[in-house]
């Protein structure tokens, strides 16, 4: 209630704290602050009392102590004598691995499904709708468990590959699907492989350079260079040539039956696969909807205008629709990445040793330091999500600048 007449100045009354709009906000903020302090103080006091009652304290010294447990998937050197801190770092890396793989796969799936949902083909459209609805409406935890069950209960055991009357066989003698995961050939970086890797990296740069050049040529002179096969050629041919010139430094280590399991090769564990695919398929369904919404957000007139200029359908998509749709697609896409990363904490349901499994799981159990572990766990996820938010803000700013 705003007053038009000047309020009397000198006489400040206590009731003005409530009735006067000028002071009221201060009163509220003050009360809110006091209440917050009281709440925090209350919780803190309880915490202190509980801890002292149980003779415990808050201390992060346990991070330096040996963890005493083993982890199956170790991106960095780790054994049971390493510290809890190192175990946590292994967990963090495992989280990042599954998040990275998941985001990549989810994007591919989502873009394909999203574009196909708008396909003129009725059957494909409906099939994609079924995919999107089925996966969006069922909890991701159930999908993780289902894929994990497929991995453990349906796949053959390594022993099925053994002996004369083996019931299972390896794909191309190189890939083995077992109920302990998938064994694929692993690259072995021999002497001189650095050169091959560098060549490959250079080729990637080369591809981008070529595409830029081709685009510029198109805009400036109207000459059209082919894009597809030269890119592929630039990407692979030099590396393969260098590989043979250097005397094949990069070899493949094929998995082979050894003892109880397969030895050699790269072991992608069932838990990783379950988590990776479930997260990718689930998030892919959401991304498909974002992509569809993004494409539909580009007005039909744009398609028609492009068509009237004589562009072919795939060029309309690439040159007109997608660049505009991306602006709408990318912000929700990034938040889907964030969701996927957070959902990767469900690793604990299938025993994948991510940070929730090591720091929030075994370390917590073995040391009993629940508060410290959960706190560190939250800090980790908070850091990741704030970092992703920061990236998103930068992106939003960058597209906002281009707006006319």
């Amino acid at each position, binding site marked *: 209630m705003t007053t038009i007449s000047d309020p009397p100045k000198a006489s400040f009354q206590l009731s003005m704290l409530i009735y006067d709009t000028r002071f009221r906000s201060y009163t509220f903020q003050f009360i809110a602050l006091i209440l917050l302090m009281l709440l925090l103080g209350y919780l803190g006091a309880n915490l202190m009392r*509980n801890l002292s*009652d*149980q*003779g*415990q304290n808050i201390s992060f010294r346990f991070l330096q102590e040996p963890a*005493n*447990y*083993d*982890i*199956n998937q170790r991106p960095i050197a780790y*054994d*049971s*004598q390493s510290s809890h801190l190192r175990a946590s770092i292994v967990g963090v890396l495992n989280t990042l691995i599954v998040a990275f793989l998941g985001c990549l796969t989810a994007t591919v799936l989502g873009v394909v499904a999203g574009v196909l949902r708008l396909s003129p083909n009725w059957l494909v459209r409906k099939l994609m709708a079924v995919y999107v609805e089925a996966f969006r409406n069922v909890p991701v935890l159930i999908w993780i468990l289902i894929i994990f069950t497929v991995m*453990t*209960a349906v796949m053959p*055991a390594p*022993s099925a590959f053994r002996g004369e009357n083996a019931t299972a066989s390896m794909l191309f003698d190189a890939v083995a699907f077992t*109920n*302990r995961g998938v064994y694929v050939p692993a690259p072995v970086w021999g002497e001189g492989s650095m050169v091959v890797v560098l060549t490959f990296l250079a080729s990637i740069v080369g591809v981008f350079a070529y595409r830029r050049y081709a685009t510029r040529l198109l805009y400036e002179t109207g000459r059209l260079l082919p894009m597809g096969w030269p890119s592929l050629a630039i990407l692979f041919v030099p590396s393969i040539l260098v590989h043979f010139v250097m005397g094949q430094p990069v070899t493949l280590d094929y998995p082979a039956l*050894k*003892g*109880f*399991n397969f*030895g050699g090769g790269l072991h992608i564990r*069932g*838990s990783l696969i379950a988590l990776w695919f479930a997260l990718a398929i689930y998030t892919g369904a959401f991304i498909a909807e974002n992509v569809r919404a993004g494409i539909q957000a580009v007005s039909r007139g744009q398609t028609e205008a492009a068509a009237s200029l004589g562009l072919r359908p795939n060029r309309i998509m690439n040159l007109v629709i997608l660049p505009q749709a991306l602006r709408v697609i990318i912000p929700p896409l990034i938040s889907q990445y964030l969701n996927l990363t957070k959902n990767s904490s469900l690793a*604990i*349901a299938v*025993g994948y*040793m991510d940070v929730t*499994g090591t720091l929030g*799981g*075994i370390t*917590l*159990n*073995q040391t*009993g330091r*629940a508060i410290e572990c959960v706190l560190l766990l939250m800090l980790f996820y908070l850091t990741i999500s704030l970092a992703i938010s920061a990236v998103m803000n930068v992106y939003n700013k960058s597209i906002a600048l281009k707006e006319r």
Partner: protein
Amino acid sequence: MNKTVFLGALTVAGLAAGASAAATLDDVKARGKLNCGVTTGLAGFAAPDANGVWEGFDVAVCRAVAAAVLSDANAVEFVPTTGKTRFTALASGEIDMLSRNTTWTFSRDTDLKFDFAGINYYDGQGFLVPKALGVSSAKELDGATVCIQTGTTTELNLADFFRANNISYEPVPIETNAEGQQQYVAGACDAYTTDASGLASTRAAFENPADHVILPEIISKEPLGPLVRHGDNEWGDIVRWTLNALISAEELGITSANVAELASAPGGNPEVNRLLGTEGNLGEMMGLDNEWAKRAIAAVGNYGEVFEKNIGEKTPIGLSRGLNAQWTDGGLLYSPPFR
């Protein structure tokens, strides 16, 4: 607005919890129920039967304490806990005692601030493997995939064992025994490791128990026992001596069948008399009445009866007494005297 369901529930919870104070015994008496933490399900040790009634070796300890304190062996609220939640549940007072095949270790006793009230089962960690694997010793498990329950001491023992023998393995961490069983049956791991008693119990639940063997190596000492919070010694005493009463009862020949008769009048053995309250006032010293032990024994039977009923050789679990025989029979069970 549904806000009130929550607030209403909060009020109810607040009312229920309001009376809580330091002395566990008073709490339990006031509540009329003993909150006892057990596993989420391990056949023979603690598992709900088809009607949801909890049964098992660890459950019997809870029931004995409830009988001693509350005169009703059924006045127990069983709280299923996992390896992760059990200690927090006890520390926070959600449960009054934990009877969940928990290994007595130094750090749990000192660092985690719990008091072990005794040992009700002397166990050791073993390995369960399918016969088809053709393994006769744990030392042959080089490179094997091993399923293991996380948050237990077995996880640490396993790491130690393989490191000491300089062989490698692939741990597959699982959360509950049920999951471990599924993974093992599906062949996702070559071996399943946990306490030997747990392995026997797990194997008993298999369709063809005979296809699986428990390897001879016992790689650790696992003294399992009930535990309570540090600092409430009166309550700790009650749990400790209830367990001892069950053990002594077997030694002294008191069974659930004859306990009523023995307790009706002082008999020839003074220790029996003291235990059953016909002589002296041991119960009062603990803040209970003198018939506490009689009720506990009448409710669940003596240690031997509990063992035979739940995990003994006649049950599907089929464990022999072994280390868990009375000291007079060459075992380790040795209750301090009731005096």
